[in-house]
């Protein structure tokens, strides 16, 4: 089971069965002959450890009444189930798998995965055609290589040349099509891309060989080079296939970890209570409650509360946009300021979010931005190569016209801008894939380069290093249980890690006019009109005994009523991870919004000397800015809502996977394992990646410096040129794949 998927929470049965929700992993098939309405669902399976587990699951699924067919792919751990929409539901399928002893999660990434699978299939098919045809062409070319002059009858030689021409056609028209397409689209944009010299070389070689095959006494001489042509197409495609594999693996992991629309939203029902429904169930006119840190599930109007929204998906900027009652809210943007009520205006495909997702999907299907940058870098180099090839052809047409064409082809083919432009992207993508397997998701792949140069790491205390556990201590002789219920009910409006430690709220208390102040606490008005506050000691109110050790206070109408002590526990692996970071030469600092004493205590337990407590979000931001002003490269590890602007300021930002969605949106790296060991692994990988990048670039430069003069001097036959170019780019890709180990 991919680690990324097992870290995601299981959606509730009510959400899976919602017909509007399961469009993500189910498609309705056209009506069958007997009038049945069948649906086909895709499920991700977990717990498989051998091929026969697949049979067990298949049998279990087939036994569910209403299931027409089930097939399990053990290698991919996917189940495809065909079921009758009138007789069963997806949750029944999931339960059947769970009864058999395995886990199943709806495969919401099925569409993207299918797209990648078809891309992979086409590439492999092209590679097979090229390789197979190369073999056959080689066979046809062997007699002219091994025969002594005069042994091979000229008409047989010509027949062999024609046969080779015929078998080259599939290679040229089908396998080499990506190169021609790439060259055409680059030229149409007025730019010289990596594919241009390759396409030019292949075209010139084919035309010249065709001339030689059908008109041996003509301009192109009698030597045919179909075998070289097919061979270098094969080698080039092999390099492209490896690059595509690395890219797909990275994309698959990144997709699985990306935060999208929330799984469940709280919609107000007719009697004023709130129910959790799937975002796809929303209709215009619904009123939903959006807690702090959650993304808005639809386009709508803010009707109660005040907040700020992160509209980075629209503007590209993460600066919070203030919103008051009457302002428009955008689906997919994140609620930063406080819990609010929203009236839904537009849902589903009408929202701007869906339009952006469609654009993103399109962008991911193209070659990643890194490759485009690499193309830009290679452009002047490529223009130089084209000019040089033209010069070589001109020179040789004077010296020895029969060889002019072949020298030009050799020059076009042997220079490997691919190595130069593949050097950085191949390494970065390979590293991203390796880290993703270890549970560290890179949202910004070039964060690796920044990470290798980091010298100061700031770590947030709450949630990152510790796991909060809260116990209630009432001030007066009040009922501790009831006070805890009230606090839990109010805490449900907040996504702060301490609030989440209260657990699910069971008391049906209706809160009005809820507001949350970052760094202080949350307040709400209950049915009797009394104002309750939950948070820091001075926020909750005056009176009662002194603050003491308690982390969270509950107060009513300005009087403190109960204290909740957080028995914080350091996460077990934090100590080892922090020691490893310190040994690596990094400076460590603990930042905390909690009291200085608690910060110092935790810091001592973990071995961090520099601990600062009692910080508000602005203070944390100032601390990072000060470090950056000193010339240090800063990395920040955070979790809670307080960290979002701080994470944006750091050079490299880490966030834990179950932190508020806000922090995840800002972070460059998401730690799925919820452990600081991910930071250690990421830094080690970043160092290795930089080393590999330097090796790649050095090799690319050396190769070109040696091979171009050789080709110019006419010492390089076209087959050697093809071999050299392909080997060079394969070497770069293989060197980068070392990072995946």
């Amino acid at each position, binding site marked *: 089971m991919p680690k990324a998927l097992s870290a995601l929470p299981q959606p509730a049965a009510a959400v899976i069965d919602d017909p509007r929700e399961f469009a993500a992993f189910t498609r309705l098939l056209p009506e069958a002959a007997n009038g049945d309405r069948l649906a086909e669902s895709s499920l991700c399976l977990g717990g498989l450890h051998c*091929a*026969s587990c*697949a*049979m067990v699951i298949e*049998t279990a699924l087939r036994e569910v009444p209403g299931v027409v067919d089930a*097939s*399990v*792919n*053990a*290698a991919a751990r996917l189940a495809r189930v065909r079921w009758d929409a009138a007789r069963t539901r997806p949750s029944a399928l999931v339960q059947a798998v769970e009864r058999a002893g395995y886990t199943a999660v709806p495969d919401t990434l099925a569409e993207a995965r299918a797209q990648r699978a078809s891309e992979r*299939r086409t590439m492999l*098919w092209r590679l*097979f*055609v090229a390789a*197979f*045809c190369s073999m*056959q062409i080689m*066979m*046809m070319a062997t007699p002219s290589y091994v025969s002594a002059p005069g042994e091979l009858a000229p008409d*047989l030689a010509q*027949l*062999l040349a*024609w*046969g*080779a021409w*015929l*078998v080259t056609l*599939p290679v040229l028209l089908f396998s080499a099509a990506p190169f021609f397409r790439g060259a055409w689209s680059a030229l149409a944009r007025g730019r010289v891309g990596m594919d241009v010299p390759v396409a030019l070389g292949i075209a010139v070689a084919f035309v010249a060989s065709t001339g030689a095959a059908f008109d041996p006494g003509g301009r192109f001489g009698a030597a045919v080079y179909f075998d070289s042509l097919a061979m270098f197409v094969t080698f080039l495609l092999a390099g492209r296939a490896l690059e595509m594999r690395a890219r797909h693996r990275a994309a698959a992991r990144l997709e699985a970890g990306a935060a999208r629309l929330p799984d469940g939203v709280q919609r107000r029902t007719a009697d004023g209570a709130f129910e959790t429904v799937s975002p796809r169930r929303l209709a215009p006119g619904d009123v939903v409650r959006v807690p702090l840190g959650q993304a808005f599930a639809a386009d709508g109007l803010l009707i109660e509360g005040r907040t700020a929204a992160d509209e980075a998906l629209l503007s590209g900027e993460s600066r919070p946009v203030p919103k008051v009652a009457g302002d428009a809210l955008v689906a997919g943007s994140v609620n930063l300021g406080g819990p609010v009520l929203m009236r839904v205006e537009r849902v589903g495909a009408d929202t701007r979010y869906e339009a952006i997702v469609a654009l993103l999907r399109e962008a991911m299907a193209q070659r990643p931005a890194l490759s485009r940058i690499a193309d830009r870098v290679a452009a002047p180099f490529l223009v130089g190569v084209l000019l040089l090839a033209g010069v070589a052809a001109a020179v040789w047409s004077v010296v020895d016209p029969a060889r002019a064409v072949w020298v030009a082809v050799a020059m076009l083919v042997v220079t490997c801008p691919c190595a130069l432009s593949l050097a950085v992207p191949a390494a970065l993508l390979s590293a991203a894939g390796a880290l993703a397997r270890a549970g560290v998701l890179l949202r910004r792949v070039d964060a690796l380069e920044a990470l290798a140069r980091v010298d100061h790491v700031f770590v947030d205390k709450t949630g990152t290093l510790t796991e909060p556990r809260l116990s209630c201590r009432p001030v007066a002789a009040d009922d501790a249980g009831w006070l805890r219920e009230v606090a839990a009910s109010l805490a449900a409006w907040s996504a702060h890690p301490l609030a989440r430690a209260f657990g699910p709220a069971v008391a049906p208390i209706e809160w009005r006019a809820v507001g949350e102040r970052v760094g202080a606490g949350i307040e709400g008005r209950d049915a009797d009109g009394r104002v309750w506050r939950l948070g820091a000691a001075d926020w909750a109110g005056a009176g009662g005994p002194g603050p003491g050790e308690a982390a969270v206070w509950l107060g009513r109408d300005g009087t403190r009523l109960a204290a909740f002590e957080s028995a914080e526990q350091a996460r077990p692996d934090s100590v080892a991870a922090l020691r490893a970071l310190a040994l690596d030469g990094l400076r460590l600092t603990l930042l905390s919004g909690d009291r200085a004493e608690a910060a110092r205590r935790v810091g001592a337990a973990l071995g961090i000397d520099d601990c600062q407590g009692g910080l508000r979000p602005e203070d944390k931001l100032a601390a990072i800015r000060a470090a950056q002003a000193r010339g240090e490269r800063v990395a920040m590890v955070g979790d809670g809502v307080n960290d979002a602007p701080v994470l944006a300021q750091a050079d490299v930002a880490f966030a834990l996977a179950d932190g508020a969605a806000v922090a995840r949106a800002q972070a460059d790296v998401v730690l799925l394992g919820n452990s600081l060991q991910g930071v250690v692994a990421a830094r080690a990988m970043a160092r290795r990646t930089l080393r590999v990048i330097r090796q790649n670039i050095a090799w690319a430069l050396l190769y070109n410096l040696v091979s171009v003069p050789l080709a110019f001097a006419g010492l390089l036959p076209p087959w050697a040129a093809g071999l050299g170019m392909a080997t060079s780019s394969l070497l770069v890709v293989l060197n980068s794949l070392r990072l995946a180990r």
Partner: protein
Amino acid sequence: MDILYLLIPLSAVLVLGVIGLFAWALNAGQFDDIEQEGQRVLDADELSS
């Protein structure tokens, strides 16, 4: 060696034919899940007709 006048064009056409055959197999989903179909033979409950 006159047979070569037949064999050389024949082998070229054969190559194209083999490629076509593989294309059909790939598109018909023959290579989708190699291990599972082999395991299916061992499944005692299913009776193949």
